[in-house]
């Protein structure tokens, strides 16, 4: 631990935590020029093998993700947590290369805290949404190399407008606010269809559903995705591995207890 007590130049800006990390060699620098992936690597298409879904319901926004981590056709890990808490009201769910994604979540989490502590005010909601976008943008070099694609979803509660907000991103950092739902990962086409159908033609749109109905829908949608997509983990009942389901509401973040998921699953899904 060391520091230079006299800031001679004002770069990086004192509130830019990623910049501070780069200064200390703790985070990869932004490449000045982008080079495409070498020909050898192009045989392996970049995958973001996972299923993440998020939708707004009566209490706020629900974010759910399966637990499987894969490398090509290998299952590497069956207890991965892809829905990460960034602060009291914000969740980031990740599809993509785990090493990059978890590091990004870690930088983001520390950035928000660092901003609050150093600037003595909470980062605005737009600022937070943009911060993730910038991390993705800075990661473009790795995306081009085909080794670090991350496609996240960001869910947070807007305390000023008293409403939950949901954003999805592309791998280059463009951000989009979702009106009703968002999905990412290899299982997302199936999930998107399910959510669209449920939202449009079922008895009640997603936004009107209560918590238990919402959790059940998430479990069913993930099960649907796992049916066709090998990279999405289903429920492992022997190992008692259930998807991660988290809810962002005006109260903060709630993680659905495994017991409740198990009960719902036994009763209504399998």
């Amino acid at each position, binding site marked *: *631990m*060391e*520091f230079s*007590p006299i800031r001679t130049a004002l770069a990086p800006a004192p509130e830019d935590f990623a910049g*501070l*990390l780069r200064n200390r060699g703790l985070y990869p620098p932004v490449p000045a020029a982008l080079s495409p992936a070498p020909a050898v690597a192009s045989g392996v298409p970049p995958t973001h093998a996972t299923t993440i879904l998020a939708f707004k319901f009566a209490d706020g926004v629900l974010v759910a993700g399966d637990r499987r981590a894969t490398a090509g056709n290998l299952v590497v890990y069956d207890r991965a947590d892809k829905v990460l808490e960034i602060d009291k009201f914000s969740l980031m769910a990740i599809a993509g290369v785990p090493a990059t994604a978890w590091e990004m979540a870690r*930088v983001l989490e*520390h950035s928000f805290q*660092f901003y609050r502590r150093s600037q*003595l005010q909470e980062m605005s909601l737009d600022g937070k949404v943009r911060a993730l976008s910038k991390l993705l943008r800075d990661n473009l070099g790795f995306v081009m190399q085909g080794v670090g694609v991350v496609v996240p979803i960001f869910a947070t509660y807007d305390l000023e407008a008293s409403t939950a907000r949901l954003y999805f991103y592309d791998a280059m950092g463009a951000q989009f606010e979702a009106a009703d739902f968002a999905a990412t990962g290899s299982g997302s086409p199936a999930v998107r269809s399910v959510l669209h159908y449920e939202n449009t033609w079922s008895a009640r749109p997603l936004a009107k559903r209560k918590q238990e109905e919402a959790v059940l829908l998430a479990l069913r949608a993930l099960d649907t995705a796992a049916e066709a997509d090998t990279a999405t983990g289903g429920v492992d009942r022997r190992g008692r591995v259930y998807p991660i389901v988290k809810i962002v509401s005006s109260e903060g973040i709630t993680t659905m207890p495994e017991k409740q998921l198990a009960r719902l699953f036994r009763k209504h899904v399998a």
Partner: protein
Amino acid sequence: MIEEPYRWVEAIANRREYIEHQLAGGSPIAALNYHDGILLFTLGRERQKIFEIYDRIAMGGIGHPGDIERLRMAAIEVTSTEGFARSAQDVSLRRLANYSLSPILKAAFEQVYGPPFLSRLLFAELNRGDGPNLFLRVDYDGSIHTNGGTFSRAFENFGVISGTNASTGRMEQFLHGKALANLSLEKALRLALDAWTVGHLTLGEDPGAEMPSAEQIDKHRGEQLASTSIEAAVLERTSVLPITWRALPDADVRPLFTTDSSL
């Protein structure tokens, strides 16, 4: 001229006198244990003086705002990068003060051609286990005074800083021996206010004067409360998040002092 040893000693002594003079008006800050953690407290009207540094570390500072700001930013940068590169558990106040802040402060103080830091800092760290909380005072010359909490044996359950040594001593004398461990937040706030009042009353006093009486404290407390803002924050052990800091706004704390002034 400075190259002669005697001149150097003289220059340091002058510098010390100058800094002490600059700090002499600084409003005291008191930090003390209570049932759920640590309370930090001061009264003021100019600017914020109590800050969050990391998950379990808070800081109070008196002196020049520019210097406090530089040290505060440095402390946040050091702890945040350590927390990121290793883990939040690896961030410790002992390391921050001994390895980062103290050498820098000492160097700045003794290099007589450069500017010293016109500031006196108070740090508090909430312990993770059953051990005592650490309170630590870092002075402009890099000297560190602790409550002993580093060695799992705390001699005091509080830490204070004030503009003068006499006043700091008075505050310590006032808080010494008080049973703080099971104090409710409300009682801790009242005790902290009294400790602040003692410190503020004795800022200009001669070292030989007596401890202010209870009436003097009562009177001075009332006068000061009317003309200043309350600044208070806690590091709470009961927090569900890793972040333990919570600021207590003036509007929430003030009713405690105005409804019933007796302890």
